[in-house]
């Protein structure tokens, strides 16, 4: 069974069809890439998967369960986390608090606990803190945990946003252009990090404009054009596809 399946999903905004009739499946443990020209509906598609948009037609299933139209916070709780194309860390709070907020839905604390059983509540908060500090240790950000997120260099803010998503222990991580604005060195670090993540059992779905990056990391690539699925195949197949080159890669070469 696929981890996530979309069945002929549509999304329209007024007269514009952002996503049309996309059927795809993400297998457990894979890295699936998605490419497509600007405005082809990639971000809209991720917004549909993460519950920010509700599809007009079609179904989305996650581990066999229908999650179509659920609000974003429930989808996160079910095990799908995401990052944003235009970096959205919480700027004015510490790195640690950013991650603790990411951990929110896994902290099993009720209002009643907070008021009537503060020691239990404290203990649960401490557990969450231990968890995210371990996560920060792993990405070598632990000693910067007290700094405000906005004071981190850009590359580390990107990393922080991914970690914040990871704090909710997702089974599926959706990344919207994770290396936008990164230099080649940061990109290589990120690629190694994401591969490591996959080794640990997280499934990844990555939208990316940078061909070198996506071709090196994804095992399977879906090409979108004008909101619809245009091709699907291995990186080699996609790279050699004349039609894909015409709509997308050709554009790249001219730049």
């Amino acid at each position, binding site marked *: 069974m696929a981890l996530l399946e979309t069945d002929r999903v549509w999304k329209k905004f007024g007269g514009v069809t952002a996503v049309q009739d996309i059927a795809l499946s993400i297998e457990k443990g894979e890295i699936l890439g998605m490419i497509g020209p600007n405005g082809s509906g990639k971000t809209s598609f991720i917004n549909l998967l*993460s519950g*920010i948009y509700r599809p007009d037609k079609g179904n989305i299933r996650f581990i066999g369960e229908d999650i179509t139209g659920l*609000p*974003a*916070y429930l989808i*996160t*709780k079910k095990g799908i*986390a*995401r990052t*944003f194309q235009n970096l*959205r*860390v*919480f*700027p*004015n*709070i510490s790195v640690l*608090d950013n991650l*603790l*907020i*990411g*951990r*929110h*839905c*896994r*902290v099993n*604390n009720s*209002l009643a606990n*907070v*008021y009537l059983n*503060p020691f239990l*509540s404290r203990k649960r*908060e401490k557990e*969450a803190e231990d968890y995210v500090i371990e996560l920060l240790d792993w990405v070598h950000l632990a000693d910067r945990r007290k700094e405000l997120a906005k004071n981190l260099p850009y590359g580390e803010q990107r990393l922080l946003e991914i970690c*914040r998503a990871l704090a*909710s222990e997702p089974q599926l991580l959706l990344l919207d252009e994770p290396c936008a604005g990164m230099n080649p060195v940061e990109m290589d670090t990120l690629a190694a990090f994401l591969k490591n993540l996959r080794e640990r059992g997280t499934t990844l779905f990555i939208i990316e404009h940078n061909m070198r990056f996506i071709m090196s990391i994804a095992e399977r690539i879906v090409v979108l054009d004008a909101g619809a699925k245009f091709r699907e195949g291995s990186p080699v197949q996609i790279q050699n596809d004349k039609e894909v080159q015409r709509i997308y890669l050709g554009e790249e070469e001219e730049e």
Partner: protein
Amino acid sequence: MTLRIKKNRLLLYAGLLACIIVLPFVVRDPYFIGMVNFIIIYSILCLGLNLILGYTGLLSLGHAAFYGIGAYATAILMTKHGFSFLPSLIVSGLLALFFGFLLGLPTRKVRGDYFCLLTIAFGEIFRLVTQAWISFTGGAMGIVGIPIPEVLGWKIQTEIDFYFLGLSLLGFTYGTLHLLTESKFGRAFVAIREDELAASVMGINTPMYKILTFSIGSLYAGIAGSYLAVYQTTVTPSNFRLEESCLMIIMVIVGGMGNLAATFLGVSVMAVAIEFFRPVPEYRLLIIGLIMILVLLFRPQGLLGAAAFKD
């Protein structure tokens, strides 16, 4: 090392507590104690408002209305229905909570500036209703002759008695808010302030949390109102004007949004400024405005605040 710091801190807190307790016996001036009581009332109000405004980032200009709901509830229950103080206090708090919940409901659809307008409208409607519904609220004359409160046999009469009553209510307010803001709930509020869309993707039920923050913040205004009713022994609509709501917002901003302890500083600074310029009432608002502008220019995060405005 850390143990020593902890020990020092504990000593500091103990010293502070001792000072607070002996204060009214050292400075026996009723005028001074009266002013401290004013600071206590506004601290309770502004702590609640800080949760709404400072933590969650919802601009509410209707906080005085919840203050009024608490005050009128206590006044009516104690004068007309023979309630004693404690049950009135609880009912007042719960009633403010309930109205906070109702006014919080539109946050699901109405955003930012428009929600702020809604809170102004709510505050004005409340004030007009209290003025017009003479049989229930006494109209512009308000309700007079609220009896002396008694808590477990302790008759609260003098300024010093009220000082300790206020202090325990303030302790309750600060303690419960501290528990809340140090938990995942407090962080969720901050996340909503920082970036609501990102917060929802973090698994935070943002509509529910906004209603929650509004309800809880209003609860404390109800408690402060209940205290005001027994302290003043009268309540009139002029206690709960838009001007009061604005003053509370200024106090929160001057102290520091998103920082509970900073609220005390903001309230004290403004209260002292207001007292200081009492002989020249025509310049009072000017001075308040000036302080606010200076703070916003030079310390936009407030005197002790952690969180700056969204940029």
